[in-house]
C-alpha cells in the first residue's frame, strides 16, 4: 500500500494485501516495499462501504459505492443518507470532481481546497489524489515495532516528493503480513494521525482487514471509520466509468 494516499489505500488496500502476503519470503525490506508499491497497479475493484465520522459536533454515517482502477482512477457514489444520495466524487490522476445531483452540477475541486475535508470526514481532498510510492518517494528502513509480533518500517519522504508528511511509520503483522497501523508524522516529526486496520476477515475471497479507522492525534475522541460491506476484485468495468459523463449518470 501507499504511504500518502490514505484514501486510495482504502480503495486499493485489498489489492495490496495479497502483495504483502506474497512478499513474506523473509524480511527483505526492498522486496516488501516493491511488492506493496507494485501490486495494485492494474487491478480494479468495486465495493460498497460505510463511512462513520465521529466528531465533537456530530456523528454521521455515509454509505457509498466505490470503484477503482489502478492508482489513478476512482469513483465514489453516496447511497445513504437520502439527502446526499447520488453525490459523487470522481478522481482521475490528480484531479477531483464532485457531482451534485440536486443542483445538477459538476464541480472541480481547486488546488486551494485540497486541504479541506472530504465529505465531512477526517480525510482531506488531498488524501484522495496524493500519489506516492514507498520505493520512489521515501527512504525506508526497519524500525523497532511497538510489539514483537509486528514488523516496523519507518519511511521519510524525499524533499522533492511534495509530500506533506515528515515521516510515515508502518506496522505490519509478522505472521499474516497484514498492516496493523500507519502513523503519520508532520514536518516537525510530531504524530499527526494514525490509521488502524482492524477486523481481519474474509473479503472478496481473501483474509483482510475489513475496518479502517483514522484517528487525528489532536482530537483523540474523533475518528473516521470505514467498514467494507462487500468487495469484488477485478470486476468488469466499462471503459468510460471514470469519466465526467459517467460521473453525472446515476448508475456505475
Amino acid at each position: 500500500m501507499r504511504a500518502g494516499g490514505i484514501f486510495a489505500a482504502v480503495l486499493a488496500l485489498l489489492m495490496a494485501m495479497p502483495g504483502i502476503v506474497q512478499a513474506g519470503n523473509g524480511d527483505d525490506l526492498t522486496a516488501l516495499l516493491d511488492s506493496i508499491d507494485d501490486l495494485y497497479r492494474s487491478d480494479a475493484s468495486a465495493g460498497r462501504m460505510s463511512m462513520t465520522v465521529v466528531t465533537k459536533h456530530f456523528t454521521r454515517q455515509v454509505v457509498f459505492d466505490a470503484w477503482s482502477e489502478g492508482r489513478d482512477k476512482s469513483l465514489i457514489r453516496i447511497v445513504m443518507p437520502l439527502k446526499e444520495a447520488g453525490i459523487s466524487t470522481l478522481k482521475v490522476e490528480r484531479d477531483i470532481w464532485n457531482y451534485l445531483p440536486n443542483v445538477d452540477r459538476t464541480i472541480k475541486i481547486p488546488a486551494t481546497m485540497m486541504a479541506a475535508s472530504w465529505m465531512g470526514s477526517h480525510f482531506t481532498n488531498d488524501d484522495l489524489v496524493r500519489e506516492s510510492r514507498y520505493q520512489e518517494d521515501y527512504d525506508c528502513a526497519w524500525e523497532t515495532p511497538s510489539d514483537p509480533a509486528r514488523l516496523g518500517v519507518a519511511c521519510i519522504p524525499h524533499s522533492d516528493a511534495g509530500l506533506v508528511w515528515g515521516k510515515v511509520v508502518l506496522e505490519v503483522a509478522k505472521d499474516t503480513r497484514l498492516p496493523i497501523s500507519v502513523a503519520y508524522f508532520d514536518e516537525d516529526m510530531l504524530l499527526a494521525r494514525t490509521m488502524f486496520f482492524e477486523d481481519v476477515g474474509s473479503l472478496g475471497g481473501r483474509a483482510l482487514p475489513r475496518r479502517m479507522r483514522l484517528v487525528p492525534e489532536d482530537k483523540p475522541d474523533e475518528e473516521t471509520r470505514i467498514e467494507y460491506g462487500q468487495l469484488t476484485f477485478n470486476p468488469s468495468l466499462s471503459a468510460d466509468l471514470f469519466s465526467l459523463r459517467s460521473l453525472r449518470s446515476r448508475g456505475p
Partner: protein
Amino acid sequence: MMLSGHIVPAWRNLLRNRRRTLVTVGAVAFTMALLVLVGALSEGMVQGLIRNVTETSMGLVQAHAPGYLSDPSFYTAMEHSEVLEAAAKDAGISVARRSFGGGLLAYGDKSAGARIWGVVPEMEKAFRFSGSLAEGTFLSAKTPPGSVVLGRKIAHLLKAGIGDDIVVLVQASDGSVGNELLRVVGVFAPIGDDFDRSAAVISSADFEHVFVSGGRVHELAFLARDGRSAETLVSELEPFAEGAVLRTWRQLMPPISDMDLMMRGMMVFVGLVFSLAAGFGIVNTMMMAVHERVREYGVLKALGCTPLRLFVDTSIEALLMGGVGTVLGGLVGQGLVVWFIYHPIDLSRIVGDMSLVGVAFDPLWRAASAPDLIFLNAVVMLVLCWGVSILPALRAARLNPVEAMNHDG
C-alpha cells in the same frame, strides 16, 4: 511691565537689521507652515485609512465568541448575542449580525474557495461595503431567496456576472454536504484584498438553509458615526457582553493601528529635525547680532547692566524671532490645510486602485487638522529657537566691558 521692558529693546534691536530679521523669520515661518501642512496631510491619510477600515465593514468594535478569532470554527458561536444587539440599539450604535462559513463556489468549469457571509441586509446598511458595488445591487428585502453578492476578484475568477447561477458546496454543521444554486445579484467594488478574493454574501436565511447553521452568530460589528471612540463603545457595551469578547479596531487591525502611531511618531521626529534646521538660522542671526554689538554691550555693562539682563534680552530677541515666525507660519500652514481639506488631492490618476495593508484606499487624500500636532510643533520650535540662542546670549552676558568697548568688530 518687567517683560515689556525686555521686549521693546529686543524688538528695536531686531528692526535694526530688518532684512536679516525678515529672512530669519521667513525661514522659521516657512518651516512651521510646512510642518503644519505635512502634519495635516499625514493625519488626513491616517484618518482616512481608519475611517476606511472601520466604516467599510469592520466597525469600531466587534464581538465574537471567546476563541473564535484565533480559531474561527463554525461551531464557536456567540451565546446571548441578542442581548448585546439590543443594548447596542438602545445606545444608538449601529450593529450588524454576521455568520461565517467556508465553502466552495463553482460556475461553469471554474471553482474557488469562498468565505460565505450570512448577513441581515438591513443591518449592513450602516456599513459602506453594502453600498459599494461595481455592478448590480446589494441584498435587500426585494432580492429573491438564493441571491448572492460576490467579492470582485472571486467573481472575476469564477467568470460569473449578474444573473449567473453559481453552485455553493459546503460542509454543513451536521457534517452533511450542503449544496445549493445561488444567483449573483451584485459584485462588490474593491473593498480589501481578502474580501475581494473570497467573500460571498448571502442572507442569513439562505445561510441557515445551506449550513443547517442552527442560528449560529459568529460576529457582531458595531459602528457609531457621532464621534464616539471605539473605547467609548466598548465601555458602553461591556456590561452586556456575556459570553462574548469585545475588541476595538485597534485590536482587530494592529497594522493600521501601528501605522497610525508610527505616522505620528514620524511627524514628531520630522518636526524636530525641521525645527532644528530653522533654529540654526536663528543661531546664525544671533551670533551676527551679538558680534556687531560687542562695543554696545561693553558700554551697557560699564553703565551697570547685569550679565543676566543681557542674557535675557538676547534670549528674548531670539524668542521673538522664533515666535513671530512660528505664528506666521502656523497661520499660513493652517490656511493651506483648510485648502486641502476642501480640495483633496486626487490620487486615483496616479495610482489607480490602491490598497494599503490589504485595505482598499480612498484615492481622495484629504488633509485633517491636527491641533495637538500643531501645538507640539510650535512648542518644539520655540524651545529650539531659545535653546540654540543660549550660546550667543551667554557670549553677550560674559563680555568683559573694557575689552568689549575696545572691540573693533
